[in-house]
């Protein structure tokens, strides 16, 4: 669907909303405008670069031995392929058995050193309208300009995503370095216990912060500062709006029934090569095709919440297309010269497929593609992909590669003669180096985002304890949320198009407390949260793909344990609230933490400054922070509001 079509549809929804409900006895129209301008700067405080980008690849500029030269069978295979290539008029590049083939693989050194994670100017304008006694409206326009201060590889486009034409969201225009969108453009109609909101809107359910248990209506926009912005704002800037209708009806004084229906809007992950890109650079994802298959889908949900004495409860059910994409490989349409373009000669006849029918193709630049097993297993494990399983998926789903691996089997590179499958990481190393050597250069791959349908059922409660004043238990808040998603689909760690389907349970327990330690300062706010997910981590990666690294396959027990994380945060305002210090710590029990000390200073009505450090560490690739631990930064945001 092109952007004009989408914009027109949205405008129609708004117009319909307005025409149907404007009261003939409308009160005087009143509008007010406010907004702010903010400079946001996140300076990296470590020298590390994003390992998913070419300049941050641990192998950048490194030379490693080509292991296939140590494998007699592999060596013979390469020479055989060389002979066949020469016989077909191709050019020989050396003989393995004669020792004239280059013994090492060298990844070119890319000397880009990026000092910034964010350096942007943001402007936001809010227009509030009082249309009639029962109707109000709100429009928010957000502009974000990020000049190209990044010393990055490939001059990536930071904002353009081809969901809606070239736009990521329904109401936006963007370019490589800027985006302008409308996170809010809606009309409220409220009469008695009924409230209806029409238009482009965010919907946030639940009470757990950071952990999204009931907060399942909207995806996230991770293009700016990923999810590493000022912790006290949670996902306010990231949660994605989309056109829809939300209605709520209050029963008596304690119960509210709420429903929504909203046009599908996928989560937006950082673009390839951008500062926070978290997919391997050789992996190019097509988001448009997957979105086009569900772009007319409507996500909907219903929630009942209320109060039973001192117990607050909520029950919810959501039927949606998961805005968070899952991935599969798709044919790369690559070509090779001579024999390697296929069909490959295998005993008994092969599939007859050509090289272009499978996902991999040659990286013409020679700079960033998979060129060695170290790169292959290192990058895939960082992304929660099982590098060895991926090889077997390739065999299973792509005839050309089945043929190739069968051919390899004749030379002892696989499980057995005629058996294309591989079972050990050692086999995988030879296979990858053989592939890269045989194709004469590093490889890249094509993938596709898929948005799958699912139903989520959940409940939650909150309870405030009362005890003797000034004791720990007095006014302690306990919150619980849980959700159950039957037959949820996950990216298969081997990137099979046959996704993992599994029931997932998610729970969170939150304890909150305001405690005044001294009469000189306002109360300190503490929050402790525990989240458990049965099948995937906080990034949505299936646990069975976690825990691997360059030398190990995944499977360190993550799959059986489930995923757990703890949050501890505090806020300490100063007496006149001009200053506030915050501390947020997210600890991933798989081995990693994120810590954000922060200070907020608001010296006047118009100016405020927030400064915080993001300190991230991961002890292994099973951690959700493995792909972001490079990004420690010190962020300053200077706001002027009007």
């Amino acid at each position, binding site marked *: 669907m092109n952007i004009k079509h989408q914009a027109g549809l949205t405008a129609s929804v708004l117009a319909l909303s307005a025409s149907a409900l404007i009261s003939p006895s409308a*009160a005087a129209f*009143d509008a*007010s405008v*406010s907004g*702010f301008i903010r400079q946001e700067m996140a300076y990296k405080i470590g020298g590390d670069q994003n390992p998913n980008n070419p300049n941050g690849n641990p192998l950048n500029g490194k030379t490693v031995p080509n292991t296939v030269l140590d494998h007699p069978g592999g060596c013979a295979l390469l020479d055989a392929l060389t002979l066949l290539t020469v016989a077909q008029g191709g050019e020989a590049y050396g003989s393995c058995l004669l020792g004239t083939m280059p013994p090492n693989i060298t990844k070119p050194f890319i000397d880009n050193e990026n000092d910034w994670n964010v350096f942007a100017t943001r402007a936001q304008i*809010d227009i*509030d*309208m*009082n249309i009639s006694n029962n109707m*109000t409206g*709100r429009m928010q326009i957000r502009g974000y300009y990020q000049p190209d201060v990044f010393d990055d590889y490939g001059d990536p486009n930071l904002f353009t995503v081809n969901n809606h034409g070239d736009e990521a969201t329904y109401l936006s225009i963007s370019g490589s370095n800027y985006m302008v969108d409308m996170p*809010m453009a809606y009309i409220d109609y*409220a009469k*008695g*216990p009924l*409230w209806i*909101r029409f238009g482009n809107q965010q*919907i*946030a359910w*639940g*009470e757990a912060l950071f952990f999204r248990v009931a907060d399942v209506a909207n995806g996230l926009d991770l293009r700016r500062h990923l999810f590493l912005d000022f912790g*006290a*704002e*949670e996902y*306010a800037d990231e949660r994605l709006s989309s056109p829809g209708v939300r209605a*709520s009806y*209050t029963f*008596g*004084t304690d119960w*509210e029934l*709420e429903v929504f229906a909203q046009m599908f809007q996928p989560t937006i992950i950082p673009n390839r090569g951008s500062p926070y890109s978290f997919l391997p650079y050789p992996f190019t994802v097509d988001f448009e095709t997957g979105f086009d298959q569900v772009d007319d889908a409507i996500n909907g949900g219903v929630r009942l*919440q209320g109060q039973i004495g001192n117990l607050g409860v909520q029950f919810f059910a959501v039927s949606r297309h998961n805005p968070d994409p899952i991935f599969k490989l798709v044919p790369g349409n690559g070509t090779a010269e001579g024999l390697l373009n296929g069909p490959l000669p295998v005993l008994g006849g092969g599939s007859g497929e050509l090289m272009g029918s499978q996902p991999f193709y040659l990286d013409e630049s020679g700079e960033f593609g998979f060129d060695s097993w170290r790169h292959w297993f290192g990058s895939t494990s960082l992304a929660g992909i099982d590098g060895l399983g991926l090889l077997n998926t390739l065999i299973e789903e792509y005839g050309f590669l089945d043929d190739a691996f069968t051919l390899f089997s004749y030379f002892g590179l696989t499980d057995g003669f005629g058996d294309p499958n591989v079972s050990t990481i050692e086999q995988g190393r030879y296979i990858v180096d053989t592939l890269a050597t045989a194709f004469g250069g590093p490889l890249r791959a094509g993938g596709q985002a898929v948005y799958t349908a699912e139903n989520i059922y959940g409940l939650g409660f*909150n309870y*405030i304890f*009362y005890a003797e*004043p*000034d004791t720990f238990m*007095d*006014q*302690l*808040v306990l919150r619980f949320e849980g959700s159950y998603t039957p037959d949820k689909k996950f990216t298969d760690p081997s990137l099979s198009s046959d996704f993992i389907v599994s029931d997932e349970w998610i729970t969170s327990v939150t304890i*909150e*407390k305001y405690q*005044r330690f*001294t*009469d000189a300062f*306002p*109360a300190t706010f503490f929050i402790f949260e525990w989240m458990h997910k049965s099948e995937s981590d906080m990034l949505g990666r299936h646990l069975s793909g976690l825990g691997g690294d360059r030398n190990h396959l995944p499977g360190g027990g993550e799959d059986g344990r489930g995923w757990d994380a703890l949050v501890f945060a505090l806020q300490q*305002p100063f007496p*006149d*609230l*001009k200053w506030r210090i915050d501390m947020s710590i997210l600890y991933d029990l798989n081995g990693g933490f994120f810590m954000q000390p922060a200070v907020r200073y*608001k*010296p*006047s*009505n118009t100016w*405020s400054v927030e400064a915080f450090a993001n300190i991230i560490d991961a002890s292994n690739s099973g951690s959700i922070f493995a792909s972001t631990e490079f990004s420690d930064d010190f962020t300053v945001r200077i*706001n002027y*509001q*009007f």
Partner: protein
Amino acid sequence: MHIRKYDYDYSRRFFMDKLAKGTMGAGVLTSLLPLMGNSGDIGQAYPEELTNIEAYTKGKVQTGDIVDASNVEFVKDILDPVSYLQISQQGRRIRIAPTTTDITELYPRDYLEATLRNQGMASFDNTGNVVHTPDGKPWIGGSPFPDPKSGIEAFANMTLSWGRHDTAVYAVEDNDIGPEGDVEYSYQIGWCEKNTVALVSNPDGPYWEGHEDKLRYQSVWFNYPNDVKGTSFLNIWKYDQREFPDLFGYLPAFKRVRRFPTNQRFEPLVPGITFFLSDAWGAGDPMLTWGNYKIVGRGPFLGSQSGSWQGDKENWSKDHLLHGGKKGLNFFEVDFQLCPEVIVVEAEPLGFPRAPVSKKRVWIDVRNMANIGYVTYDRRGELWRSFETGFAQQKKGDLANLDAKGNPEWTWSYVHAMDVQTNRFTRFNHAKSIKGGLSASFNNEDAYSKYLTVQAIRRLGA
């Protein structure tokens, strides 16, 4: 020559004697309450030196005069300590208005009628809560103790109905001035309160059916500036004054309503403001979470009980009255009148062990039980903060904001709140409307669904 039947010392001796003996009925020459009910004119209850500033000051200050640093010493004894400090040291001016003797000018009409109608019917039950004596049910409207005999009775009058209307929506312009006299912060605040019991204008009686276990719903939300816009809180007060209200809050960053604990009531809601929830109406906390109520004084007092409504100005603005402070931006020049008799009550925050406040002292005008002076003391016993509220009929010349029965409305008009230790100052103006299209109103039938539910604060929060 003006001959006074009762001299200044007479009333002073009278009040001291009354305080010492613990006899508490309001009025000096005669009881106040019967006059309120019979004629509506309370002038006969007090000698002239308690109803005429000229008589009280022996001619040194007259009605219509401006009291400023040059003459404040003549009225020092009848000002609260913060007002005195402001006038004597910070350039504040007040204008002396005649003492209001027509009781109908000191109340919303329905509330006054309920007060008179229901007098003598209130008592405390064994939990300390006010009940309608004949049936033990919640209070039925008006001031339960119009002639209070104790500090807790006086506070019950202020607590059970804050704004003296069944429902009120206030549009509040807030400006917060720093020690250097600059307006450092400005907020536009919506405030809505709706009693569920003790109703005085409800045709169906004193109770909102199904809500008898509560006292009120109250919400506060911010429409300006941008960084706090949408921040909103809903308090649901239980009738049992030993319990804290339920608190729900919408923070724009979270985009959702969350339930909060509610015992932190001695902290500013937003940066720069010199106002705590505990300050509201001089009785911002459930009555029985405070204790040691005691009457510590009785006598005349200067307070703002009339004349401050600026209905002829755009949006009821008082900006033309600004003066004082280092930049001339602190104070509204408002009318003060000699209030013949106030009860001075002190109380301690027993239910808040780490409260920064050690006690509050409130000056309550016996004519209408309004808190016309309020100061708090820190834990060292040093004077800390004030929360001066000015009340007035919304009437100016021929211009008036009328209630449903055609009577001029009566409500608060402004607040001056000051932290004397940091010299930070907050002023509220009760405006006609604020950004976002919110207009002040009373007994608005839609108020509950528009402002006082979890759904409503989510909608207000955007």
